[in-house]
């Protein structure tokens, strides 16, 4: 019984090592991800993305992101940060 247990340990250890080495070899020989390039073959830097924002709740309540995929804006109570705005902008 003791011999069978010992043989089983050796078999499991050997199988694990074989699996690990096999995976390593597969990854080492796979293609690397393609980099964006210009016509001249130089790598280009992608433009920063425009980030969708959740509408800000001006009542002062927290405004959770409504699933737009963008960042969440939490608007603190207006009185805590500033007085009522004198100015507004929206095109004339």
């Amino acid at each position, binding site marked *: 019984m003791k011999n069978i247990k010992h043989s089983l340990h050796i078999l499991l250890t050997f199988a694990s090592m074989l699996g690990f080495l096999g995976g390593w070899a597969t990854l080492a020989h796979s293609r690397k991800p393609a980099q964006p390039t210009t016509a001249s073959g130089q790598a280009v830097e992608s433009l920063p993305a425009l980030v*969708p*924002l959740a*509408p800000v709740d*001006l009542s002062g309540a927290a405004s959770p992101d409504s699933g737009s995929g963008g960042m969440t804006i939490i608007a603190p109570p207006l009185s805590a940060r500033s007085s009522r705005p004198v*100015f*507004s*902008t*929206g*095109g*004339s």
Partner: protein
Amino acid sequence: MENMQFRAMNTQIILAAEGQARQVQPGFDMARKFILESEQRFTRFSTDSELSQLNQSGGAWFKVSAHMLEVLLLAKEYVEKTRGLFDPSILPDLRRVGYDRTMDLIHSEGVFSLGDPVRHPRTPFDALIIQPEQSLVSLPGGLTLDLGGIAKGWIAEKAALLLAEYADACGVSAGGDMHLIGLPDGQPDWPVSLDDPLHPGESLALLHLPPGGIATSSVTKRAWKQGDKLRHHLIDPRSGEPALTEWLSVTVIADHTDTCEVFAKALLISDTSEAQEIAIKAGIDFLAVDRQGNLCGTNNSLEYAQ
């Protein structure tokens, strides 16, 4: 904070300044006088304004005032920086689509002109000749200019500088094109409400701005019907027609208000990817509202909306 409000340039003007009323009142008076005089100089709706006289000069050398020269030189610079998306030579197209009187008159009386369906070629802006040393300008080949937007931003900033002689913190808004100097007492920034283009009278966000300029261009404010066509005042120089835009409004934050006004217009007219390229190249931060009412922005501009 003391403030004075009045109507000029077919829009609402707001002057605001920190200080006692008697201390800032002379500043208000001086800024108001400058704004009204500048309106007379740059309007295209008065035949005896300096701009109208220049537009009627038929290519002959015309001696312009120092203020007109400054704005024309700025305009030339911005045409290059925006790759022609800002173009003051679109005046004939603006008239053709019905914007041939003040917006106040169009809103009260409607549009008279149904527009020429054929677009006639116009003389491009680069035909403009300026001799700065002599303050001489020539508009050859029937070239005519509309300086409405850029002049409004320039006037707001100059008026704010005049007001600043009487107050450490002040601001001037010309229909949302504004220039802010210093900071309101006890405040870390200027709170400015960003209008919701889909819901007039409502605010979409509260911006927290440093001193400097801000301006918004929108396709929903200066809009009218010409026959059965819905028109607005932002002409795409490439087509000569009101721009078909992916955004409803664009707000630009920069050091100078004329920069904000010009780039807000150019970014709204261009498509979104081109807008990003132009903004990055010019170091411009902007916020945009799309047709669904979503607020987007360049990375730096997000700080102002938080």
